[in-house]
């Protein structure tokens, strides 16, 4: 195993907060060689459960062991207190993955601090953050947005995982535990895929600068997806899974991407045809985006083929806009989608769902069809850019049948392929002047 490892690269995984530690645990279960994992939390029990090699307890006398109570400010203060320790943990690392669930206290507060510490050490910082479920309320969403912005300030790339997307992957009756596990596994897939691209000695190498190039300035719009398959048509199946992945929105994400990094990894028998198949599917959907290809062999995969895609979206657009677009849309959906869930009394009332600065126009008048279309699009969980929503939707033209006058309702009289209900002079092309 160690032979295959890229000796020049040191990667560290940091799980921050409860969600971050849970994600870290999933990754730890995969035993990525050469990766150092650090768990950071206020909750001693959560740290005790984790198998991470390094654990940092943010608890201090400041809050008398009461945790952050969901306040990011407290989380930030606690992390600042330990800034020196965090920095020492980042020392010597080239890539730091910061995994956190935003919206809570530790994740939202400590993750940006950690990113700053890593940045100070000269590492490439990539954030993998989960955004809260819609049903968690607007306040958590706002906290998550703010944390995301802070994180973005100090990291080279932030990849968002809107948890709401998980709803599309699970059945109606899934338990909460299943749902969270599913979200964590998806996140871990992406992280592992990215790690594999970087750490494995590739047949076709992805250079470290390539990844930086893809992620730089792309921030929140970066989307990652990983799919694996085995069997005869593993490349085809993997591509299908990839396109079915909720984050790629059936390939829409690729279409809007500015840069796309594709990592293909398999056991020893990776054929050129398979690489070609995957790249063809990606390229055909990418438009004019820059595409980076990496291919690697990893014996631990056996017969499986893993495709990881990182697509970075329209960076320029994001810079202009002060608000990260994804959460804004999600807020809109929050109010429209699940009023029943949101009106629960244990959730705080959403007083200002939108920033005051923003002018909110009245709802546009829509026909019945349009309303239905919109509802369907929402149900399918499309949170891709506004472009997608604004895209013109060409309705189906109803088949118009020329009326046959009084024989409309009767069975047509067909003889030798001629419809005798049509006037004879028409069929005979008789001309009357």
């Amino acid at each position, binding site marked *: 195993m160690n032979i295959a490892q890229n000796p020049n690269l040191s990667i560290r995984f940091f799980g921050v907060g409860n969600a971050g530690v849970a994600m870290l645990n999933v990754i730890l279960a995969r035993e990525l060689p050469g990766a150092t994992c650090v768990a950071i939390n206020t909750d001693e029990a959560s740290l005790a459960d984790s198998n991470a090699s390094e654990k940092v307890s943010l608890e201090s006398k400041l809050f008398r062991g009461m945790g952050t109570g969901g306040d990011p400010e407290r989380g930030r203060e606690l992390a600042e207190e330990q800034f020196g320790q965090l920095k020492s943990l980042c020392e010597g690392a080239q890539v730091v993955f910061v995994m956190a669930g935003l919206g809570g206290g530790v994740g939202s507060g400590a993750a940006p601090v950690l990113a700053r510490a890593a940045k100070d050490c000269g590492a490439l910082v990539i954030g993998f953050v989960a955004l809260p479920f819609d049903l968690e309320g607007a306040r958590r969403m706002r906290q998550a947005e703010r944390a995301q912005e802070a994180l973005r300030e100090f990291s080279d790339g932030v990849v968002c995982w809107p948890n709401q997307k998980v709803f599309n992957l699970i059945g109606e009756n899934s338990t909460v535990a299943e749902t969270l596990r599913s979200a964590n596994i998806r996140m871990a897939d992406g992280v592992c895929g990215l790690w594999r691209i970087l750490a494995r000695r590739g047949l076709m190498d992805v250079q470290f600068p390539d990844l930086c190039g893809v992620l730089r300035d792309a921030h929140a719009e970066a989307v990652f997806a990983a799919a694996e398959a085995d069997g005869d048509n593993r490349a085809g199946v993997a591509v299908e899974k990839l396109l079915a992945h909720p984050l790629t929105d059936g390939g829409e994400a690729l279409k809007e991407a500015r840069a796309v990094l594709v990592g293909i990894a398999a056991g020893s028998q990776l054929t050129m045809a398979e690489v070609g198949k995957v790249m063809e599917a990606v390229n055909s959907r990418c438009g004019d985006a820059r595409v980076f290809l990496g291919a690697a062999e990893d014996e631990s995969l056996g017969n499986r083929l893993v495709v990881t895609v990182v697509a970075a979206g329209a960076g320029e657009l994001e810079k202009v806009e002060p608000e990260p677009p994804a959460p804004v849309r999600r807020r809109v959906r929050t109010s429209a989608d699940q009023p029943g869930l949101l009106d629960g009394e244990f959730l705080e009332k959403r007083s200002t769902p939108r920033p005051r600065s923003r002018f909110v126009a009245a709802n546009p008048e829509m026909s019945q069809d349009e309303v239905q279309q919109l509802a369907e699009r929402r149900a399918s969980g499309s949170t891709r850019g506004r472009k997608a929503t604004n895209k013109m939707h060409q309705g189906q033209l109803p088949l118009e049948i020329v009326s046959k*006058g009084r*024989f409309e309702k009767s069975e047509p*009289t067909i003889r030798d392929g001629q419809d005798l209900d049509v006037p004879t*002079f028409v069929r005979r092309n*008789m001309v*009357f002047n």
Partner: protein
Amino acid sequence: MFDSSSIIVGLEIGTSKVCAVVGEMSDEGVLNIIGIGQSKSNGVRKSEIVDSPAAEQAVRDAIVQAETMADCEIHSVYLGVSGGHVRGFTNHGVHPVVSADREIMQDDVDDAVKNAKSVNLPAENSILHAIRQHFVVDGQQGVTNPVGMLGARLEVDVHVVHGVTNRVHNAVRAVKGLQLEVESVVFNGLAASLAILTNEQKEMGALVIDLGGGTTNYAVYADGIIKHTGVLAVGGDHVTNDLAFGLKLPLGRAEALKIEHGSALFDETVAGQEITFDRDASGAKRSVCKEHLQRIMAARMEETFQWIAEDIDRAGLLNYLGSGVFLCGGGARIPRIADLATQTFGLPVSLGRTNCISGNKAVLDHPEFATAIGLVRFGSFQQSKPAPRNPITHTVKSTLTNLFRRG
């Protein structure tokens, strides 16, 4: 019941009119038409009911009118059916004579007919008529009764008229909804030929074309028996529709112009003539070219005859029509229709006259009533069919049969 058994009613639910004809069988077996009732049809397209309530009302009107005129009560009718789904074809049956002395027995005849009747119909279809043709005994053609003859191989053709069961039952249901019994369903083309043709004409060979409002039915006789039948779901409605379409008129106006100015052949003398009429109540005038009207109509009629000629030619019967073509139905009233038919078939053409039944000639001599009168005639055959060999047993038997049939 015994009184009414001599009353035979034919009911035709046509596309343009519903017609009920009441006939009375005298003790001598002579058929006399005593009543006729008709009403404007509604809810019928191409001879098939598309709107049951409307059609039932029309049937009720016609029946009431016939009852009033005949001064009797109608309990049961012979119902004429037609429609694009009705088809006729001839099936061949063979039976080897197995008895030692090679004498053909009645059982052999029955078996041969049974073989011929066992035809492969689509599951949703059922047989309306199975008409036995002449027998062939060891290649000897034209045998009418082979019982008692010697032979090894008995062949027989059966002409089968069949239709889609459900669509036939639509008409039967409409009639039964009026508390009337349906004695039998009869194909309209067959009924019309029964009313028009004499035995001599049947022997010589004849084609009867019933030009109806929604369908055109035809039947071919040769050597005294029905050789071929067919339906073309094209009729007077199509002519009206063509005119409405071609002259850009409403259907009602097109119908009126068809009746007033229509012709089966384009008449050179009308070239350039205009027909002027009030367009609506406002008094605005509109005119159409009479030449166009006649050309459109002639094209449709010519085509209709051509389809029939082609079908009969395909059956190889065009040369057997010694007594020519007989036209009936409302379409027979179209001026110069006989000329057109003569052109198309190359045969003598005459308008069918129902001259085989006694009754009020003035009433009966309309080609529109041929089908309904034929239905009565069909009924009279049915009722007098079993030749009373043993009068007493037969009477009892038929009474019982009738009882059960009506029950």
